[in-house]
């Protein structure tokens, strides 16, 4: 497709260390020599590593690989050491570490041309989107999830609705700020979609370590079709598609078990506004 020539360099994904490690479970009784306890993002990083392995298997000089960078805000020297050690301990391939102040998060993301910022914190995701940084939600994986695929869900609503139609989402109880977040996400998504599409095409339909899904939570089947067509134009061939027409997302997400949920918060809000 058109962007084929532009696929230089890695697909950089930024994580925060408090998603990589579960700091809340550290108690007074924890041995300080142990590595930090694993957080949600560890299974994600492992899945990413598998995709990279398969890409390199196919082409040793492959440049379009995932690169994960870790951002840590407001850390003491002690914690910094701990982080680096723990990353090594779990065998996680982290490209770069950034230790910065809280206010510097957005700058750090921007200056490193991050293609995707992943976080479990909805506010962080929304803030990033509003400043034009592609950001998505890191979905909570169960620990026993079998790591055979990296699963990415893209919102059919955000892609399928036109800009004007997104405004009408207020009928479902979304606030203006929320709608602005969806619009911001719509703009940011394209670059990521193009890159991940290129990556996906390096594998066949079956046995792919990467799986792309479209989830349309509110829009009709036609909105979903519009999303599928648009993604196809961008070079992204989708594997799985779901259209919920207002049904609660959580039961479906629990079966899909995605790692990345690109929907600007649509799934959280919806479970609340079904009481409309």
């Amino acid at each position: 497709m058109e962007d084929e020539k532009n696929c230089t360099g890695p697909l950089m994904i930024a994580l925060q260390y408090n998603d990589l490690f579960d700091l809340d479970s550290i108690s007074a009784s924890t041995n300080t020599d142990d590595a930090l306890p694993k957080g949600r993002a560890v299974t994600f990083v492992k899945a990413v590593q598998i995709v990279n392995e398969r890409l390199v298997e196919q082409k040793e000089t492959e440049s379009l690989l995932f690169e994960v960078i870790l951002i840590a805000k407001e850390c003491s020297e002690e914690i910094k050491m701990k982080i680096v050690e723990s990353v090594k301990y779990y065998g996680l391939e982290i490209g770069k570490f950034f230790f910065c102040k809280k206010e510097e998060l957005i700058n750090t993301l921007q200056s490193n041309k991050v293609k995707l910022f992943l976080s479990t914190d909805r506010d962080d995701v929304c803030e990033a989107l509003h400043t034009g940084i592609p950001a998505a939600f890191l979905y909570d994986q169960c620990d026993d999830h079998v790591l055979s695929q990296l699963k990415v869900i893209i919102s059919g609503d955000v892609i399928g609705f036109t800009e004007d139609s997104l405004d009408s989402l207020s009928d479902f109880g979304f606030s203006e700020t929320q709608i602005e977040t969806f619009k911001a996400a719509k703009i940011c998504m394209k670059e990521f979609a193009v890159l991940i599409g290129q990556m996906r095409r390096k594998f066949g339909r079956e046995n792919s370590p990467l799986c792309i899904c479209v989830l349309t939570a509110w829009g009709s089947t036609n909105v979903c079709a519009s999303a599928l067509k648009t993604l196809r134009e961008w070079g992204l061939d989708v594997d799985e598609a779901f259209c919920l027409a207002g049904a609660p997302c959580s039961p479906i997400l629990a079966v899909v078990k995605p790692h990345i949920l690109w929907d600007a918060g649509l799934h959280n809000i919806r479970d609340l506004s079904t009481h409309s």
Partner: protein
Amino acid sequence: MSLDPVQVMKVQDPMPSTCPSASNGDSQASWDDSKDIHENEDSTKKPKSPKPENAVTIAVSSRVLFRTEKEQKVFEQKGIEEYLRYQVEHENEPFAPGPAFPFVKALEAVNSRLRELYPDSEELFDIVLVTYNHAHVGIRLINTINYHNLFIERFCMTGGSSPIGYLKAWHTNLYLSADAEKVREALVEGIAAATMFMSEKQIEVSETQLRVAFDGDAVLFSDESERIFKAHGLDKFFEHERENENRLLDHGPLKGFLEVLGKLQKKFYAKGHRLDCPIRTYLVTARSAASSGIRALKTLRAWGLEMDEALFLAGAPKGPMLEKIRPHIYFDDQMFHVEGAAEMGAIAAHVPYGIAQKYPHIKSTNAGK
């Protein structure tokens, strides 16, 4: 069966709609999505889909809703990449209706009547397309849904993974598929399910009244009596039934579905529509009215379930009876009967449950029960 390629440009709304949100600037003719946003209460647009736990959810696979034989052949002979390429190439050609199509249309007819009588209720049929097709086929499926004016707003295209988890997530009351393996899996999980096949002959069915017919043993009831019959023969069967006349039969995989149909029927009766109820249920059993049938009737009564018509055939072939009834779907646990029904053009579905799956009926004997 090939259809002329249809340019599906406009959404075909079954109801006339006024569009409150502006589509004035929107010159896009295709996928005009501003028309499709679900509205809340008082709207003249497409009605909102009910919450899965409130509705009677019917999950259908793409191979039973539509005819996809040609595409299946491509898949089997040339593999998945070629299959997907073929589907995308023919994206604007809608599929022809499959075996479950009349059933789905009848469900929609019932929904219209329910909405008239109970405009705020969510106790409706909700049809979900659950297919393990890849999303590549999605656009063609959506085109086809629009072409046939079906009201299907929900789907899961699982791209090759098992659909069973999704069936549970949708609170599925009935799952129809062409794949016996998946149907068996669903039954094991306690979900009513049946396999459907395309037959060449198809008798006309009503467009206004949903007719659902059930076999008794191993469908509504457990296969307890079937077991006795298969193991010890007809006489032992009669003896067993006589002795146990007052002991209820255990429930079978489709009892739950009959139950939810009954609940919807009562909603019509409550508004004075008993005689012209748009849902009608039939029991079509090889049991005989005078003897073994009594236990079946007593069981149904104890369960609080009413059947509109109970046909005790005492071993006579079911085909001619089904031809008279013209059900939108007939559930039977024995392939022999399903095939017999199909020969007469009746729409039959196989429930792969119970002892009959291990000891299929031998065509030469047609023993009465």
